[in-house]
């Protein structure tokens, strides 16, 4: 860990100023990823801005019937908040599928969005990684890549975004409130994370000096037909090989709204709204889900060790949609898959 200057601002304004003043300053919230990356010398900020004292710990209802979640709300508190459990159980479920109880107590809502890939090469400073060190190459291509991307990757980077929470947020059309030196703005979740292209060092579209202040969830009716299903190499406390957040609404046995987001397969939570739209008006049956899943994975490309994830993702999409349609969401404490 490189020695750094530690500041603990009391207001959002002070925090933004403290971040903005130092080009490589980083905001510290739960620390579950940043401190880890600092120990590995992957993150080497010369200034750490501890934002834990900022007033961003609340969850409140919005006038439009949604909720606004403070960036410092812990993953555990968010998962078990009555408003989230009743109105956005998909989010609650995705949160409980992630990490461990200890990590969920520390990890924050804002920090979860900013967690970095779990690619082995990104973490190992003895190897090449364009995300860690632009221009050094991608060790994972042709290397150990079982856990890496099958969609939206580039020749520069095949990393995946490891979050479970973000997969649900993508399905729920969350909005990210950020505040920076130039004021506040709102970023649609779809536009928050980005694909690696030629600049994989940038995970998202935030600008230097900006802070996430809130996540806003719009009002939905996705509280009955939903499920979050995560497949991994052991039954808990592991990152996803593939995860799927699915939610839909039905009227007269026909689909009126459907959302499907994939985790563990791309540099960002993966979703295809155009294909989802094709399911609207159809019966929620196996044929429809299968057609959708096949189309969703149509452009997927394996890297050798992770080729299996293409068919696995297709199967997982079908199963998750089936669970959602039947209103039998996968409980995260239950390991038999419904």
């Amino acid at each position: 860990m490189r020695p750094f200057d530690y500041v603990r601002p009391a207001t959002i304004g002070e925090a933004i100023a403290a971040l903005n003043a130092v080009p490589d300053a980083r905001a510290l919230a739960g620390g579950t990823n940043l401190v880890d990356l600092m120990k590995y010398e992957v993150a080497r900020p010369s200034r750490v801005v501890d934002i834990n004292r900022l007033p961003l710990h609340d969850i409140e209802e919005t006038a439009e019937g949604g909720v606004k979640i403070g960036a410092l709300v812990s993953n555990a508190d968010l998962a078990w908040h009555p408003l989230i459990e009743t109105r956005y159980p998909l989010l609650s479920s995705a949160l409980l599928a992630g990490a461990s109880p200890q990590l969920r107590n520390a990890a924050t809502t804002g920090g979860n969005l900013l967690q970095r890939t779990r690619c082995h090469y990104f973490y190992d400073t003895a190897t090449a990684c364009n995300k860690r060190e632009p221009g050094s190459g991608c060790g994972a291509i042709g290397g150990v890549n079982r856990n890496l991307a099958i969609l939206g990757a580039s020749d520069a980077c095949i990393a995946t975004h490891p979050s479970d929470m973000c997969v649900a947020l993508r399905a729920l059309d969350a909005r990210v409130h950020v505040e920076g030196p130039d004021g506040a703005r709102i970023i649609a979740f779809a536009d928050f994370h980005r694909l690696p292209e030629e600049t994989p060092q940038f995970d998202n579209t935030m600008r230097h000096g900006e802070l996430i202040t809130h996540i806003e969830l719009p009002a939905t009716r996705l509280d009955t037909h939903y499920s979050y299903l995560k497949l991994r190499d052991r039954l808990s406390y592991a990152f996803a090989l593939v995860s799927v957040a699915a939610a839909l609404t039905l009227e007269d046995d026909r689909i009126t709204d459907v959302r499907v987001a994939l985790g563990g397969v791309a540099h960002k939570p993966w979703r295809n709204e155009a294909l989802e739209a094709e399911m609207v008006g159809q019966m929620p049956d196996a044929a429809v889900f299968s057609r959708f899943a096949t189309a969703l994975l149509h452009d997927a490309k394996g890297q050798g060790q992770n080729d299996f994830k293409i068919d696995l993702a297709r199967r997982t999409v079908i199963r998750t949609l089936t669970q959602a349609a039947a209103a039998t969401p996968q409980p995260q404490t239950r390991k038999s898959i419904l």
Partner: protein
Amino acid sequence: MADTSGFIGKPVIRVDGVAKVTGAARYAAEYHTEDLLHAVAVSATITRGKILSIDTEAALAVPGVVHILTHENRPDTARWDLSYRDMVGPPGHPLRPLYDEHIHHNGQPIALVIAETFEAARDATVLVNAQYDVEAHLTDFAVARASAYDPPKRRMGIKPPQPRGDPQTAFATALVKIEAEYHLAAEIHNPMEMFAATVILDADGVFNVYDKTQGALNVQFYLTQVFKLPAKKVRVIAPYVGGAFGSALRPQPSVYLAMLAAKALKRSVRVTLSRAQMFDLSCRPETLNHIKLSADSTGKLTSIHHHAIGHTSAYEDHQETVVNWSGLLYQCANVDMGYKLIKLDTMSPGDMRAPGAAVGVFALESAMDELAYALDIDPLDLRRINYADHDQNDDKVFTSKALRDCYDQGANAFGWAKRSSAPRSMREDRDLIGWGVAGGVWDAPYSPVPTRARAELSHTGHLTIISGAADIGTGTYTIATQIAAETMGLPIEAVTVRLGDSKDPFAAPEGGSMMAASVGSAVQAACQKLQKALFKAARDLPDTPFKGRKFKEVAFRDGQMIAGDVAVPFTDIMTAVERETLGVTATVLSNYLSTQKYISYAHTAVFAEVRVDEDLGVVRVTRLVNAVAAGRILNPRTARSQITGAMVMAIGQALHEETLTDHRLGRIMNHNFAEYHIPAHADVIDLDVIFVDEADTRVNPIGAKGLGEIGIVGTAAAIANAIFHATGRRMRDLPITLDKVLYSDG
């Protein structure tokens, strides 16, 4: 006086338990002294080649950094390989960290940063900049396979038995036969405690070495040889060991580096390794088994072929007993076995829980399952049909073998009779259900070297048992306490056991399931000797109440020596003889004559239930029943823990564990607990252990066979066989990840 009899065989609560649940138990990195320095190793980032230069200037400039050791400025150490050979190391040239510029494997220590604080040492390591002359390396087993060789020097006499009968003809002419290859990935021991050593240099110039080791005496021996120090100057202490599973049998670079630094700086130093560095120490070797089995129509085996290749390092020939079990477990007249090595540019593999058996028996017991299906005979019946009542490998008599009872009692507890034999014939909801069985076997040896223990009775009536042996979580403290308390007729609380100190009586490193039997027997012998000493002291008193009594007439009970109606408390005897303490040391040896005729093994029958999601390939091991025949069970509570613990490790072996190496770099990439998966709580559902009665008066004086290894043997095969029964897919490559369940067949 509390109860003082019948402790052996009772579920006595761990005597070191309170220390462990309160945080009072201290491990190697947890000893402190005023001026302690902290050191962190720098690891090589290439796999093979030479260090051209190491630039330490920037690292030395970090505030708090005291010194950086490299091969260029290290203190003098021994020159000859022999000095680096520990008591259990394999043939070859032991690695000498920081000795010269040569790199033999990725992750080899190349420098040690020593600082006033842990943080300064850790943070300076990244500033050490090595330049290398890189040479070509080979880490890919599949590529190296063609160059397999017979190890020219055998480790501890490990070699396959001579072939018997005419296996080639038997196989060629058999009506029913199977042939297959079984591959197992390299595994890392990964005890929860990371390797560390704290060397505290005292005023007398003695290096007090708190190390993570299964053999304090082995480390002391090694350090005195390497650093050319007299034994009295090096004391190695390891009262608590945070798991080891074989990884702490040999001295690891942590203790070597800590001594190197302490010697160079004449200061007390602690070296702690990182979890990533734990992947550079040792491993279970990657192993390939080739098996051919044939049988007649009744299921009787007509031939067994088992040839294995294990990997070793470029510098040593690590060897383990992989194939011999196949000539032992079943009766068969025609057997052919072979064991070869291949060299890879990795660290030397080492013994890991049931070395050899955990890989070889997996292959044999998977093949037996395949044969059962080829014969259309129940897999358990096939094993009964081929039951071996005699050891054909060595033509010896088993001191005991209750494996039939394991089959019967295990099957009964599991409900095996309700099994529908066809693959894919049992299901519930979306799960395919599979039931599998496998057998397990492990040596029940006596320590090959003498084992010593000391018993000291104080004037207060407190008994202290002392041995240089170790308790790595296995329960040695507790069973030694039980044996001592029962033998001397004292309550458990009146006995203290001291272990893990090199200045104490000799015991071999804690491995191979020998500890309970060897140390247990030594403790018993020491206590019996103490009884005699106490009796003699009492009888020789001028006004002795034991006048005319013989030792065999005396009993030791309730803290008293009793003869007829005379009962005298130990404390009174000690007072009368005016002794502060009365101490004796006993030595036990294996009975050479007995070992010429008899041989001892522990056995198991393991039954597994898996549930496999048919569409997604997710496997859950929902039930495991392990029926164990291991002689006398000294403490069913700690014994059960040893077996269930090994079963958990077997779940990891079967489903999770493998090193993922980038062969272009020769580097293990998943060198952390997030990506090298060991089972978590959620993966372990229902484990049952049955200890079948097995009286054995020949194996050793206390009648116990060790339990450290046997629980893992056969368990992975039972799981793989259950997955076949569930899915119809034969899994011949461990670990069985969900992609293999979905997309591969063998």
